[in-house]
């Protein structure tokens, strides 16, 4: 492999590969790789997924930006993934930096390092990557000539814990804002003298970036705290910084048909198939679900475009499996005709279609069965809570009948393994709700036995972590001990049955809780965790709650304050200045409704509740059909067995203003 510029580290890195685990992580060489030759007029991006290659490669967001940027005449993008600790040690021992997998260039050869954070526990890996790149951890300690460190992703809707380490944060859909950042950086680069940027010039760039909607520059803000530790104000300290930073939203996904040429890895990765995005956003209104809240409104990709992307994607990748991604794929309004069309397009080949994030009802199982041409191994449903009462609290409106009908039809058509996903530690949860999980599992097994002796059911439980910009961000999370007791209760209840219980480590739930609603003071904690060797905290073999608790103590902070404390109505959150469009008043009212087990129906097919997103951003739900899809209680819009206590407002006239007044 000979790279066309002499900065490539390939030969040096190649020499390290025999000594590390899974060396194929570091070679790149994927199908559809883009090796664009950089020239001085281009802005060079290194897109970094701060977890392993196997986890990061399939990430759709990163692949979209990779292709989109490389399609621009003035941009060049490569990718990097966090090196596993053996490789990181080897790189350090040989004085080699973090490198791109495309052309094996050092991270500092790039103008921008763009990180994506799907989850909070990856934060220490940001420091690992920066350090391996040879950069100072804190933005203020970096030189003006160092790459600009940018970050985005769902976990950064509360960016404050890593505010000290990054130069800029991008909120919401990345396609448009990334190009605007690219253009701003390009013009800025062109204005520099050959000696490179000086400190004032770097500051000037950050001020320019702050003017782009969706870009947050942490260094242009300050935070004040009350004596009890609570945040009292987050405020701009520079005129270029808006009082509130609004997220970006692509109004019509039809405008951004990416990725066109999905990367095909040479080694096995997770989700190793063609991934095609059906829609963004979800208005089911599940109150625990940050993704559903921060990606509103619903924007469906046009069906003919989905078909085209599947056709092209299969032919350029050679994949035989397609996964149709969204937050609830059966909710796509033209799902039936779309799938029929896709099946018709691929009638000759052995193509199998899967719909992850299945809605729980028989209709959905029916369409899943139609398209799953290969063997039916397992099917996953997420009722999330064990009783109808608690499901009303979290607004996951699945009745027992929906679940049982879904499971019945699944066993009937040949699926044998059901996986049921639940959360524990939800607001208002009682012992009865936890027992309800076991009751549902037993009933599911009972249904399964009618069809197959080998019918099995796995119950998977995870501790609930309240997330920013959700109606539950006021809630005080369960302690690891309470979560363990709830798991023990389930163990007892399921003993002697064929149900298999698996659970997420309550200690990891605690650490995630610290970061999810954390503030800028956590920078010291994250840095200490990293300095104590705490990398890859998403991985059981490296996670250690003790590292986090010790770091908290050393920094004079307490997890009780961040994790356990139930916030009041007038709490000022660390992310007060970050906006996903949702009005705090809407979230508070929804939180109060939740405590009364009051429900909210899907606003795709009911009048608007005025959560704030559409009205503030001049957007609308973009669905192909005015009729809800057929199905169970969620689909048909059948009256639920409780009255809907939320008052229905008429759909407001859409204000065509893009940005709300700052402040």
């Amino acid at each position, binding site marked *: 492999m000979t790279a066309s510029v002499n900065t490539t580290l390939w030969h040096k890195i190649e020499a390290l*590969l*025999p000594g590390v685990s899974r060396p194929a992580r570091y070679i790149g*060489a994927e199908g559809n790789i883009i090796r664009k030759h950089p020239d001085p007029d281009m802005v060079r991006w290194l897109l970094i997924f701060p977890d392993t290659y196997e986890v990061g490669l399939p990430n759709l967001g990163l692949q979209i930006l990779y292709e989109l940027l490389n399609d621009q005449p003035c941009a060049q993008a490569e990718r990097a993934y966090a090196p596993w600790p053996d490789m990181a040690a080897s790189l350090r021992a040989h004085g080699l930096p973090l490198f791109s997998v495309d052309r094996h260039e050092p991270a500092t050869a790039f103008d921008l390092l763009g990180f994506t954070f799907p989850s909070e526990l990856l934060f220490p890996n940001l420091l690992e990557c920066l350090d391996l790149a040879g950069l100072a951890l804190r933005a203020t300690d970096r030189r003006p000539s160092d790459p600009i460190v940018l970050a985005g992703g769902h976990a950064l809707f509360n960016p404050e814990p890593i505010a000290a380490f990054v130069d800029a944060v991008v909120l919401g859909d990345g396609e448009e804002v990334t190009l605007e950042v690219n253009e701003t950086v390009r013009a800025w680069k062109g204005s520099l003298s050959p000696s490179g940027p000086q400190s004032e010039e770097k500051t000037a760039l950050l001020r320019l970036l702050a003017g782009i909607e969706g870009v947050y520059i942490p260094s242009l803000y300050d935070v004040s705290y009350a004596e009890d530790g609570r945040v009292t104000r987050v405020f701009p300290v520079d005129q270029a910084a808006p009082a509130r930073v609004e997220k970006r939203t692509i109004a019509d996904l039809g405008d951004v048909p990416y990725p066109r040429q999905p990367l095909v890895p*040479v*080694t096995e990765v997770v989700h190793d198939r063609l991934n095609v995005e059906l829609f963004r956003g979800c208005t089911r209104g599940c109150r625990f679900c940050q993704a559903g809240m921060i990606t509103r409104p619903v924007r469906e990709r046009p069906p003919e475009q989905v078909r085209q992307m599947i056709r092209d994607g299969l032919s350029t990748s050679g994949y035989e499996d397609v996964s149709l991604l969204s937050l609830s794929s059966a909710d796509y309004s033209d799902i039936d005709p779309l799938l029929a069309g896709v099946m018709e397009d691929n009638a000759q080949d052995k193509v199998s279609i899967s719909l992850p994030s299945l809605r729980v009802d028989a209709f959905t199982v029916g369409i899943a069965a139609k398209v799953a041409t290969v*063997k039916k191994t397992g099917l996953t449903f997420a009722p999330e809570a064990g009783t109808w009462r608690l499901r009303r609290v979290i607004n996951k409106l699945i009745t027992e009948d929906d679940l049982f009908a879904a499971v019945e039809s699944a066993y009937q058509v040949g699926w044998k393994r059901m996986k049921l996903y639940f959360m524990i530690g939800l607001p208002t949860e009682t012992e009865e709700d936890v027992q309800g999980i076991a009751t549902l599992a037993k009933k599911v097994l009972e249904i399964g036995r009618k069809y197959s002796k080998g019918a099995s059911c796995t119950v998977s439980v995870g501790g609930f972590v309240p997330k920013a910009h959700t109606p539950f961000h006021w809630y005080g999370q369960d302690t690891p001990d309470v979560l363990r007791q709830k798991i023990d209760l389930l163990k007892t209840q399921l003993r002697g049955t064929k149900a298999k219980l698996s659970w997420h480590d309550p200690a990891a739930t605690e650490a995630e809780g610290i970061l999810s609603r954390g503030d800028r003071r956590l920078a010291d904690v994250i840095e200490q965790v990293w300095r104590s060797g705490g990398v890859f905290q998403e991985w059981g073999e490296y996670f250690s709650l003790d590292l986090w608790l010790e770091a908290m103590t050393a920094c004079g902070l307490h997890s009780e304050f961040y994790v356990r404390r139930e916030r009041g109505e007038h709490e000022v959150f660390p992310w007060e200045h970050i906006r996903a469009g949702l009005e705090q008043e809407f979230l508070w009212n929804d939180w109060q409704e939740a405590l009364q087990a009051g429900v909210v129906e899907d606003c795709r097919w009911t009048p608007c509740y005025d959560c704030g997103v559409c009205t503030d951003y001049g957007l609308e739900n973009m669905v192909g059909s005015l009729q809800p899809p057929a199905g169970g209680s969620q689909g048909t819009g059948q009256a639920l067995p409780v009255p809907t206590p939320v008052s229905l407002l008429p759909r407001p006239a859409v204000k065509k203003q893009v940005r709300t007044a700052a402040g």
Partner: protein
Amino acid sequence: MPLAFTEGFSPRPKMHFGPALPTCYASTSEYLDVNFQEGALTPCGLEGLAQTLTEMLPEGMEVLRAVETDPRARSLMSAVELVEYVVPLRTAPSALDAALQRFLDRCAIPLTITRKGREKTVDLRSGVLALRSFCLDGPLPARVVAADFQEWREFPLLWMQLATTPRTARPTEVLDVLNEESEREVCEAWLCHRTAQLFSSETGREEPLPRRANTIALPDEDLWDGTGAKEVCYREEFVDENMKKSLLSKTVKGY
């Protein structure tokens, strides 16, 4: 491609590989048997096969030739009796040849390996049939193409021939034994290269698809370039069952 698939619930393409190349080794000699649907591949299609596959494969992997073989032929796994490696050394003892001779003079070299969690002692010496050093400017071992090693022109290169039964020794195991002698002057390898895989035939041991103009040298007669080379012609056999193709692939970076 009109591949033949296995029967059953989850059909898979019928493909068979030879002895696996260890991770992080390069190779210029890998073989793969692929079954195609009956009558699906025309002679013309066979010609374009190597190029088509090369275009689809990751950078650094090239299919050099594809030929039709007898479907009743022995599997690659059992047919390959010898494999040859070239190992460029970034450091080597000053008396490398003497060290190699001492290795070859030993009757047995016990080696403890872990297989499926169990420790087992095997003899490394009996698996090493030949072991020599050479440099690119001097005479080359048979089947070694100088162009493949230009990068390491300044370094000594080790050439070794290893048996595949009862167990294929690894070049790195040979280096480890050589290095046991000395703590200071050790052999450190660059990338290990597999340069040949040999089958036995009526005329001796030969590569099924040699790289250079169908000429091979017979290892038993002369291991060195030039002398003893012999023309080998490949018979095209007509096969009316599933056609079986042998592919000689050149893997520049094999991971």
